């Protein structure tokens, strides 16, 4: 039996020590902690339903070994409410019909939030490119894109002092 390994991470804003097995997927580790907003849609990095932010970068947690998260800051949809951009995206999705069945929504919200952090006022094409790794079967993406545009508008232009 492989020995469990202890990871130190910041998970949704809290420092945590987590025990994982070598070879364990980050997806399974997080779901095992009850973070079931991380969804498994394909297990091979195609659908984006298991997306999380690892040190601010969008990753498919089905393709990331839990060990790779040692020392990292992790954000799942459960922590999105604390984040300025993600919370704005969540609110816009709820108001504008960006959600239908909701399975792709956690990944979509994280992908859209990650986009708005690097590009505060994206054009539609840029949004579509940023969300192309997150499959949705319900919406046809129209209201998903509209939700991201609305969130960007609500957040306003980037704060010039933050850019420096």
């Amino acid at each position, binding site marked *: 039996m492989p020995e469990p390994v202890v990871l130190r991470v910041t998970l949704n804003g809290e420092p945590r020590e987590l025990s994982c097995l070598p070879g364990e997927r980050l997806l399974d580790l997080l779901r095992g902690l009850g973070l079931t907003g991380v*969804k*498994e*849609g*394909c*297990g*091979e990095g*195609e*659908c984006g*339903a298991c997306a999380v932010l690892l040190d601010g970068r969008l990753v498919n947690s089905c393709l990331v070994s839990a060990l790779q998260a040692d020392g990292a800051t992790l954000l799942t949809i459960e922590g999105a409410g604390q984040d300025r951009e993600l919370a704005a995206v969540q609110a816009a999705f709820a108001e*504008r*019909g960006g*959600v*239908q*069945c*909701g*399975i*792709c929504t956690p990944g979509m919200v994280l992908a859209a939030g990650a986009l708005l952090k690097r590009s505060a006022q994206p054009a*539609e094409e840029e*949004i*579509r*490119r940023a*969300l*192309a*790794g*997150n*499959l*949705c*079967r*319900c*919406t*046809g*993406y*129209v*209201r*998903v*894109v509209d939700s991201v545009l609305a969130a960007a508008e609500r957040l306003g232009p980037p704060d010039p002092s933050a850019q420096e």
Partner: protein
Amino acid sequence: MRVELEPLPAVLDLRQAMAEERADVHPLGPVVKEIRIAKGDPEPVWSRAAHVVEDEVESGAQEQLYIEPQGMIAWAGPEFVTVTGSLQCPYYVQHGLCAVFGLPAEQVRVIQAVTGGGFGGKEEYPTVLAVHAALLALKAGRPVKMVYDRAEDLAATPKRHPSRTLSRAAFDHDGRLLALDVDFNLDAGAYVTLTPVVLSRGALHAAGPYRCDHVRVRARAWATNTPPHGAFRGFGAPQSCLAIERLLDKAAAQLGLDPAELRLRNLLQSGDTTATGQVMREEIDLTGLVETALELSDYRCLRAEFARANAVAGPEDPRRGVGLAVFLHGAGFTGSGEKRLASRAGLELDGQGVVQVLAASTEIGQGAATVFQQITCGALGVTHEQVRVAQPDTAHVPDSGPTVASRTTMVVGGLVERAALALRAALVADGLAADADPAAVARALRERGRSHGGERWIESYQQPDWVVWDEENYRGDAYPTFAWAAYVAQLAVDPLTGETRVEEFTAVQDIGRVVNPLLAAGQIEGGVAQGIGFALLEDVRWQAGRMANNRLSTYIIPTALDLPRIRAHFRETPAGYGPAGAKGVGELPLDGTAPAVLAALDQALGARLARVPALPEQILPLLTPEATHA
């Protein structure tokens, strides 16, 4: 134990099934279900008509590809079975479990968990998974959870039936449709399952929204040795609507008419009869619907512009096309189906005056819960805080029938509305003023809740007397009402790669009164997206009867980059049959999207494709004829 296996030659697709007509594939024979529809007499028309057009169209299997795979948790003992999982139809699952375990319905409980999409794919198969999980739970004496991974889900669950349609139409000099003959064929797979009802809906949509005095439809479902095909949003109609629309496009080319013009000359009007002899009692304005779609999409200008541009296009210039499809979708169960179901739904008033909607219709992302709450609030005259929607649980909600066939708002919503009106009438009898404001209604509900806590208001579906259906001869009122639509696709084909990009999509429809505009538009946009996948991308590859590309890296569905901004436009005629004049909406967009895309490809390529999905592999040779001679 010694097992001897002798591999026999298998029948693995529809063409082979139709060519070989092998009797040993299924106990029912090579054809497991046949339906015939007859109106007038086409025979004498063929020889005297100015134009006769023949066509053949095929469509492949399509996977529902809900993003959440199927899953179920079961508890079981000698006297009970309880399951919860991802499913569309709790009472279907209960029915299946009762049959397998020999238990009465009271001892079998099915609870719908939050479900991540269905599209028909969770209509039938969850019963199989529930039985597997419950049998294991009984044996193990422990709860059992079974969750399919994507490969298992794709390999095992039913997909849209592959189809092959051979059709013929006769026209007079002016392009009026005189006679129509449709030979509609579906690949059932190895078991019958839902195939007869899918075939029925396909047959009933085979003549499209066109007036024609002489019609023959012969619809057959053929047994093969593949996994069985089943329910997918549209339920046979996308295949037959594709065939009739392809036939009309071919006819337009042969007659030298614009495809839109040919359609405008043949649209059904109020008072006309369909192929089954159903008189169109409702107000229909298909001409207005088509003209709206043509105007919103700028069809006529684009058609002329693309014809000019394609004629002078260089070898690397994109070829563009614009195409129209006109179609209908019968809402609710076919024929006497709703009468047999006799669905029940209603409300419960609790001790605090909160009203709970009781229905077995499941929320699977389409907005059932929101619409039920909205209908109840409207009929009662209260705000949404006062109304909740119960989780579908066979121990708590009545059997409202399955969550399929675009029936939830129209049929079950109608029952909920009636229950709410009955409750409102009871409040008025208690002394509530007829013009009471929402706060006063809420007070009256609290008062009544205190004295009548737990009171239920359940309504049962009754089919109106004027719906008369002859199942034996396929005559009469196939559906109580139809939704109508005209879709326009505009696209560009890259001549170097053969890739097609849909650049604009205009979807105009009449679904009666639109109960919730945001959700209704979401249904259309999502349905069009699946239809574009059906038309251009989604190709189930079979290898010895198994799905070979059972992964998301090899079965391709549209991403945000593959789709245009889909424009949904509603022309409301509040003549519908459901609450406040609503009709069904969910399946409609699947029927007309692929034919609109294929019609646009006709123009872009200057050649016809007769099979969906239309993949770059089929498109490229049409653009570079010299390559085929090289």
